[in-house]
């Protein structure tokens, strides 16, 4: 409790409060814009963030993460184009509501539901993070290795329409993670001394997210403008409140645990929440025509899952979404070792972050509820200006990592890779997670084998490790059974939609 109060002291320090405000404003803006998400924004801001204090930077990043979840719903509702992959479901009912003149209520239930879910999620974090941290500190290298392996496996298979594409992305990421001479002998350095230190993850992340997206947009620059639905001040009637509060709570219950699992964040729980609300609703006939429950539930679920993401991130150093992956990189860049000992070694940072999440949530409610019409104006920024700015910051960021022109060349190479991945519907998350977790996986393996003096059986010598492997085997079996059961591919219209979904940045 004292630690939490100290955390609030950190979070409410004027400087950090300022960074939280900047974070939520920036986060909402990028959330509103389709194609530009919190992950790209964090990647672009990493070099800037390193000049600030660790607390301020992490607090700002958390604000951007939460803000992105809020902003995405605005675009979903007003444009029928999800700003983020996590608000794909919101668009189904939200846009219908807006078309029938209930945009204000849709925006209100999304914003208030996000606030409720975010707050409950954050309170759960206060309880869970110290508890889980106490447990995972006991884990040995073999268990940790197994958990990392499970995370990589789940990120690649659970998400997206195609397991094959997931694994292609994962192995690309692991390969990039191999480059360097960490083990003493050079691997994949092609005799190039500049590659001896490996490729900085910042360069990879900026290239995949920013350059890849910019090239993708440049390839599709002129598009018919979307029709935005004009909206006034968001508000809700008593009836809307009555119909919204239960979906908010149910959405939170779905979102939080899924956020904590390495299953790619908010997509699964938002779909589950939507399906549940449809089943439980007293107005099933309204679904498909703009039912408020269909906005309230999924919006709560996506914010709760954003909160849930912090459980594995802060206790295990395990990112479950692309945005969390970049936050992890940021923590590492400050010379702080993430993992089971993070809470013990850096209590100020962790509790400051946990307290700031509540502050960010409150700020977001304040900036989103009255200012929703203003945020819709962000959509009128001409794309050439927007992406010129992104390319500028991306290049600057990549160069400032080591002050080497070589990194800018790498940036372009990986940028083209990012474009190709978008073109062929290969998900980005497994690659980024692979680059970050690959070296860690190897480190844990080396450590485990060093302790056992080369005896491989140590890998399944811990109960936790065994459980994890069993879970993995079950998942693998489930994937295989599902694959055998439906040998014919889905109808073309359907698979096209899935691909479109995978292109949305996470």
């Amino acid at each position, binding site marked *: 409790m004292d630690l939490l109060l100290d955390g609030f002291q950190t979070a409410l320090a004027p400087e950090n409060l300022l960074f939280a405000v900047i974070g939520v404003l920036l986060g909402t803006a990028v959330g509103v814009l389709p194609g530009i998400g919190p992950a790209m924004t964090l990647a672009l801001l990493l070099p800037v963030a390193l000049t600030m204090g660790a607390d301020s930077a992490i607090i700002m990043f958390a604000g951007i993460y939460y803000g992105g979840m809020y902003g995405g719903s605005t675009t979903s509702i007003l*444009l029928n184009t999800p700003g983020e992959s996590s608000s794909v479901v919101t668009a189904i009912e939200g846009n219908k509501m807006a078309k029938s003149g209930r945009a204000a209520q849709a925006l209100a239930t999304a914003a208030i539901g996000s606030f409720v879910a975010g707050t409950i999620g954050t309170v759960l974090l206060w309880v869970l993070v110290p508890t889980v941290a106490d447990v995972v500190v006991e884990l040995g290298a073999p268990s940790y290795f197994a958990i990392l392996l499970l995370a990589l496996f789940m990120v690649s298979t659970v998400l997206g329409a195609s397991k094959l594409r997931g694994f292609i992305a994962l192995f690309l990421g692991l390969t990039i993670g191999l480059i360097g001479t960490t083990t003493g002998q050079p691997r994949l350095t092609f005799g190039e001394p500049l590659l001896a230190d490996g490729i900085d993850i910042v360069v990879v992340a900026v290239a995949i997210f920013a350059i890849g997206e910019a090239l993708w947009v440049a390839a599709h620059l*002129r598009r018919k403008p*979307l029709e935005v639905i004009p909206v006034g001040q968001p508000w809700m009637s008593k009836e809307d409140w009555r119909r919204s509060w239960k979906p908010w709570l149910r959405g939170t219950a779905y979102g939080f645990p899924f956020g904590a699992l390495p299953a790619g964040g908010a997509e699964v729980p938002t779909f589950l929440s939507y399906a549940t609300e449809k089943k439980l609703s007293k107005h099933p006939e309204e679904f498909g025509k703009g039912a408020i429950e269909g906005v309230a539930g999924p919006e709560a679920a996506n914010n709760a899952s954003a909160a849930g993401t912090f459980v594995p991130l802060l206790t295990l150093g395990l990112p479950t979404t692309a945005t969390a992956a970049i936050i992890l990189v940021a923590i590492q860049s400050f010379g702080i070792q993430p993992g089971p000992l993070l809470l013990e070694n850096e209590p100020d940072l962790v509790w400051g972050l946990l307290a700031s999440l509540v502050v960010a949530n409150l700020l977001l409610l304040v900036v989103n509820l009255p200012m929703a019409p203003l945020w819709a104006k962000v959509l009128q920024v001409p794309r050439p200006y927007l992406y010129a700015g992104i390319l500028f910051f991306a290049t600057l960021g990549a160069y400032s990592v080591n002050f080497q022109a070589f990194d800018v060349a790498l940036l372009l190479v990986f940028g083209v890779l990012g474009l190709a991945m978008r073109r062929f519907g290969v998900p980005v998350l497994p690659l980024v997670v692979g680059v970050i977790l690959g070296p860690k996986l190897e480190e844990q393996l080396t450590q485990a084998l060093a302790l056992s003096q080369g005896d491989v059986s140590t890998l399944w010598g811990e109960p936790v490790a065994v459980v994890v492997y069993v879970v993995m085997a079950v998942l693998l079996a489930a994937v295989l059974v599902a694959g055998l059961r439906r040998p014919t591919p889905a109808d073309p219209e359907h698979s096209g939609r899935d691909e479109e979904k995978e292109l949305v940045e996470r």
Partner: protein
Amino acid sequence: MSSLMQPTCVVAAYSADDYGRAAVEQGETIAREAGARLVVVNATRGDKLVDERYAHEDEIAALRERLVAEGLEVEIRHDVVPDVAEAVLDAARTCAADLVVVGVRHRTPVGKLLLGSVAQRVILDAPCPVLAVKPVKP
């Protein structure tokens, strides 16, 4: 013989705001009195996610319906083009227009510095006389 006083084809540059509507209404009046063809051009560069001056589909449909109901011969060009002024000029050239109607607006010095004016380019480059109109002040 067609002339400014007896036009056979009028082009109206339409943007989905008061200025554009003023231009279309003026073009409509002239076309109706002279029995001329009316070509309405509403274009966008398509480089923004949302372009407020680009009319919605149903807005265009309503406009077409209204103009046809008045007995006018109407053509509406609703396109994504690289250059909006060029789209208007192109419409004027291809149908050998006798008159182009554009809406003109006040612009701030900063606005002039940052952005080109579609109306100005149409006025200067059109192959025929151009009528500049303003919405009625309330």
